């Protein structure tokens, strides 16, 4: 009830806007910025949700609106939900895997800290994707390097921000941040493997009962 009530108050939105604006501070002052995310509550899970939603929306727009010279999407088979999933799922998996490993490795960050910091670290990619959509309308295939360089720089920038964020929120050295990130990637693979195992076993089990029921139905009729 209180959460719903707070949606009606003006202060909630001002706070949210300030938290989102903090993302711009974070990407230029990562050491300071990410330290304050967990310690001084400069950003919240809510603002991270909003930023992630923005990222997903811009990804869908990138795939649909970018000039066809720079993006290769077969609109016949395009599925916006897959595009959204391709953004949200890796970040969710990363947050869980990273949190799981860093908890064992004396990390100071909570799950929410990891999540907020990761989403905030992707701000350069979000901005450059949005800018790229606009730029792609004005440049030709010969000038494609401009577009692709921008996206590559944004990606590298974001990856470095993720590393710095991990250092700051867990109070790690760079080496430990890299090692824990590497382990987290392994953890993602492991989680996907378990998921697949689980779903295939469940579907096998369900199929068993379905065939059992079918058998009974065929016998009775």
């Amino acid at each position, binding site marked *: 009830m209180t959460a719903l009530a707070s949606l009606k108050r003006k202060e909630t939105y001002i706070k949210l806007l300030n938290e989102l604006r903090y993302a711009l501070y974070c990407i230029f002052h990562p050491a300071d910025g990410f330290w304050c995310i967990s310690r001084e509550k400069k950003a919240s899970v809510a603002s991270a949700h909003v930023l992630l939603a923005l990222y997903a929306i811009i990804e869908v727009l990138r795939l649909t609106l970018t000039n*066809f*010279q720079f993006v290769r999407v077969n609109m016949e088979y395009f599925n916006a939900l897959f595009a959204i999933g391709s953004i949200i799922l890796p970040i969710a998996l990363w947050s869980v895997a990273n949190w799981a490993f860093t908890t064992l490795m004396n990390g100071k960050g909570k799950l929410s800290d990891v999540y907020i910091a990761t989403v905030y670290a992707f701000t350069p990619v979000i901005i450059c994707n949005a800018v790229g959509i606009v730029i792609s309308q004005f440049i*030709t*295939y*010969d000038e494609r390097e401009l577009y692709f360089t921008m996206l590559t720089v944004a990606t590298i920038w974001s990856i470095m921000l993720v590393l710095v964020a991990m250092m700051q929120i867990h109070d790690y050295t760079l080496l430990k941040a890299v090692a824990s990130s590497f382990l987290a990637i392994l953890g993602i693979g492991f989680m996907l493997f378990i998921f697949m195992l689980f779903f295939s076993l469940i579907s096998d089990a369900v199929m068993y009962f379905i065939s059992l029921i079918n058998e009974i139905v065929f016998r009775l009729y």
Partner: protein
Amino acid sequence: MKIKLFLVLLLIFAFITALPVAAIGTGTGAGPTNYTYNYSFWGEEIAMPDAYYVAATINGNDFGIGNFLNPQGLYIRDNRIYVCDTDNNRIVLIEYHEAGDSYSLVRVVEYVMINQQQSALSRPHDIFENRNGDIYIADTENNRVLRLDRDFNYINSIFKPDDRSFDEGMDFLPLKLVVDHSNRIFIQARHINKGLMEYNIDGSFNGFMGASQVQVSLYDYFWKMISTAAQREQMELFVPTEYNNVALDHEGFVYTTLSTFSGNPFDADPVRRLNAVGTDILVRNGMFGDSSPAGDWYWSSLGGVDGPSHFADVVTFENDGYVCLDRKRGRLFAYDFQGNLLYVFGGRGNMDGRFVDPIALDRMGTSLFVLDARTSAITRFNHTEYGSFIDRAMNYYYEGRYDESAAMWDEVLKLNGNYDLAFIGKGRAALRNEQYYEAMKFYEAKYDRESYGKAFQLYRKEWIEANITTILVIIISLFVVTKGLGIFFKIRKNRKGGA
């Protein structure tokens, strides 16, 4: 009432379902004789109307000389069709008469007279008629190439080269040959992987030409490095691949095909156009990524046939297009001068337009002739209306008549609205006519990025030049407004502060 309504609906339904049947019934008399297809931008196989139909099949029996036996070579100049009837040790010359659409036997050559003595042919594999009428025969098992005049009178012979670059112990087994416009003779011989053997007109050996580059991957190199000598002996040798056919185009360049490659056919360049020093100068600007002309893009393993297409022969046209023969699946791949796949047809089987073991390909005008070594028959393909539209559109473009080309592409689109190259062809014509925006639309429809980029660049330039005043006015006014507002707020703030 309800029953009446039901009956009316039933009648309408019956009428609707009967319509397409009627349409098929009253359609064109000749049904499809082939399955013709192409690939879309997304790599999907797309069926299209037939570009060629089977016009005739020619057998040795048609002329009362017994059937051909394992024929290996086919050569056509003007209306003369030369067949190398290999296992019958003879050359058969057939003439085509356009007047009656008929074929007649001109002569059968089983031997040539050398110094008043009969010298029999032994398993000839190829024959070539030069522009001045000289005939060259690859007399394979006699280890020689014969040069004859137009009446098959002996002039001279070409033998195994007396040269250090040719292995002494090796037999000279010429299989395929061409003679270029400056009378250099290029011979592809069995077990020779140094390229084509180049001879002068007097029969002297000139050296090898156009050996294909050896491709060694880092992975192979690594394993070779760490393996022992005994292991190395067991390994595949890194030798250049052997060509399997040669052809000459209208400008005198040599086309070669090869089929002994491992790995990705698109990297192996199975069809090449060699210049005088043996460098591959084939244009590979196919718009679909790195799709170098190499036959099928995807293949399945059906009926014991697996792997990429194996080109066995190539024939070129005046507009620099060419058709390759895939021996493995009996398919014919037509390409334009840029290396775009135009259409694919043919296949394996025992019906008209299908082959069991197609071995040689040549053309008479725009008609294609395919020689099948197993069924010993020559199949003649003529252009359908659709195929000739494509061909003429290409010709017009090649000649620089872009408007006619675009009109021809319109005709193609009437028959096949799915044809990517027709849109791109129309785009090309629009670009040449400086209709940049129209060109962009055509290119965009079929994802031709590079051409779109070019058209867009020109369009953008034109647009900026036309609207430069507006753009400048907007920029300046924006600048003035923002500056002005800034000053305004500053003053107001100062006043407030002052007050």
